[in-house]
């Protein structure tokens, strides 16, 4: 049996599953309890788990992540919501300098089994300060695991895996995906971090995508098919740990690669993957390693401009055509 649910509802379902599974799981954030989250992705949790386990906070992002960190080191498995991923900047010290370094600096004395959930990315005409895709910020920090699901089933399974993981995980929910639907099987779903999925097989070019870009990559692949180009699409699902085997195995077969990322161009995760391929399988490569990214500019608010800005199916198709030439 399976059910068709939204990405948004999958978040609540995944959280509920884990809160039932483990009573040390506690969830905090701004407007997450009574209001059910500003994206309505945590509806029903307060009702089921009560105000001690589902807790509203002040607008104090450092206090939120500090609470999560201190609790994680003392027997709790906190899940903290940072409403928009842009706001990670207001608590970046916790994200980049405290949480990821503590196990290492204490040589393993302190574990931080915590999850930071956050709504990432553009497409909703929210303007430059509420639309950033910042998964690459997180990937650049040693000591953080970084996950970004592309569909409802993965939301549940990867969220469960993140919550059960003994290390801190930054969990990016792509806000443009909240209303999208997908099939989800009944019962508990627990996935594994660090395993990419080949969502479409192909032989001419490998397209590596994440989150909202997976759907566009698949659409592009369909279109490429009709142009006589066979594209393989990999949904990375997690940036750390990174499933380099799946990428490299695919690229060795197709001999060409495109990465499609929503974050701005410079130092994105696409650059990391291109670099891995360029170092480890340069002799197998038969075309320029190409990144399709958001250009390196802040995100404009107007719909006409935002549409121009995010990687589109057309841009992916064009890049693939160029690469296989």
């Amino acid at each position: 049996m399976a059910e068709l649910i939204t990405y948004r509802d999958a978040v609540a379902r995944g959280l509920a599953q884990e809160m039932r599974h483990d009573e040390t799981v506690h969830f905090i954030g701004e407007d997450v309890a009574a209001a059910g989250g500003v994206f309505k992705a945590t509806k029903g949790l307060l009702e089921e788990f009560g105000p001690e386990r589902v807790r509203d906070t002040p607008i104090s992002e450092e206090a939120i992540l500090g609470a999560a960190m201190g609790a994680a080191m003392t027997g709790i498995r906190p899940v903290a919501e940072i409403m928009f991923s842009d706001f990670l900047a207001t608590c970046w010290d916790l994200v980049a300098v405290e949480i990821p370094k503590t196990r290492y600096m204490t040589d393993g004395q302190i574990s931080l089994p915590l999850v930071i959930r956050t709504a990432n990315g553009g497409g909703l005409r929210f303007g430059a300060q509420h639309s950033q895709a910042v998964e690459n910020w997180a990937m650049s920090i040693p000591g953080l695991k970084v996950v970004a699901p592309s569909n409802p089933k993965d939301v549940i399974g990867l969220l469960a895996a993140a919550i059960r993981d003994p290390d801190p995980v930054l969990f990016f929910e792509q806000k443009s995906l909240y209303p999208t639907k997908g099939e989800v099987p009944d019962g508990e779903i627990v996935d594994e971090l660090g395993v990419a999925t080949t969502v479409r097989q192909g032989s001419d070019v490998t397209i590596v995508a994440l989150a909202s870009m997976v759907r566009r990559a698949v659409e592009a692949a369909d279109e490429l098919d009709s142009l006589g180009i066979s594209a393989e699409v990999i949904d990375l699902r997690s940036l750390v740990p990174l499933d380099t085997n799946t990428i490299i195995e695919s690229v060795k077969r197709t001999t060409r690669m495109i990465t499609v990322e929503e974050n701005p161009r410079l130092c994105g995760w696409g650059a990391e993957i291109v670099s891995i391929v360029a170092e480890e399988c340069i002799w197998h490569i038969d075309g320029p390693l190409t990144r399709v990214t958001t250009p390196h500019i802040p995100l404009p608010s107007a719909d006409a401009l935002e549409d121009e800005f995010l990687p589109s199916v057309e841009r992916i198709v064009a890049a693939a055509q160029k690469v296989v030439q």
Partner: protein
Amino acid sequence: MSATTKSAPEQGTDHDADDATPATGDDAEAATADASADGHLDDVVRLGLYEQVVRIRTFEERAYRLFMEGLVKGTSHLSLGMEAIAAGFGEAMRADDYTFCTYRGHAHTLARGTDMGGVMAELLGRATGVCGGKGGSMHLTSVEHGAMGSYAIIGAHLPIANGAAWSAQIRGTGQVAVCFFGDGTTNIGAFHEALNLAKVWDLPVVFVCENNLYMEYTAIGDVTAVEHPAADRASAYGLPSIIVDGNDPEAVYEVATEAIARARAGEGPSLIEAKTYRHGGHSRADPGTYRPAEEVEAWLERDPMPTYRARLQETGITEERLEEIEARAQSDVDAATEFAKSSPVPELQAAYTNVWADGGSSWRN
């Protein structure tokens, strides 16, 4: 007037003088009457205040309709019910003073005289918007009117307002920076850092907390250690506690005038808490159902537009003059709407301009 100013040492015990809550609506009326009984405000100022309120109200009601029609995309945050604060400050400020506001910044931007057409066009994402369509509802800016930006990250603009005030201090211009923010903003770190530095450097900056009792959907009282999120913290920065009825344009105007004068005279910063309420939800997506009906009711009765209108009439302003103001606002908003709707969307190439001062966006050769 209905503002209570207390020096830091006395602060903390009795906020009974704070008559800005709906439960004491009658007292507030009385206090308001006092304010005009002072006889300080002449009719020009009072009509100016009313015109500000009316223009903001009329504009925002139209903006709301345009959202509903799907012409404004994304999100937007209205100040319906809260107009008296932007109005009072707008009238009290000098043309070259600086305004810093938030995503809920239509009111404050208009109150500085920013062209309504440019603001409406920005909401609609048009090329003729004040920010060419790149800012949107949450980022209105009109430097020529001293509207130095609307900031969408809670707390961020408080330290930035300090910077403009510091610059005015350095340049010796007598300019003042006024910084508007919400009750929820008092719990973020940037608030604390900004207030402390403002006092230490004695900056000409006025911080205005618009306490509308709610953050997005959560009541400020549920997540704040003190009753008055701004005023009860003033003493932590060596400042007096100031609370004002934020639905009373004249009370706001007087507090604003005083604080701005102090700042201009080199006497340093102020922190003002204006009690108010938003008529609608937090943003376009929010019906605001988490608020008790009686609370909404009580505050609607204190709607700054009809209450101020009635007061002006009582004190001798003719119906005719009021109607004239209202008619002008209507026709200006109509014209602004027409302008915005008929404006083109930005050229795609515009997305690649104005990252850098050279006009472009290139990061390489």
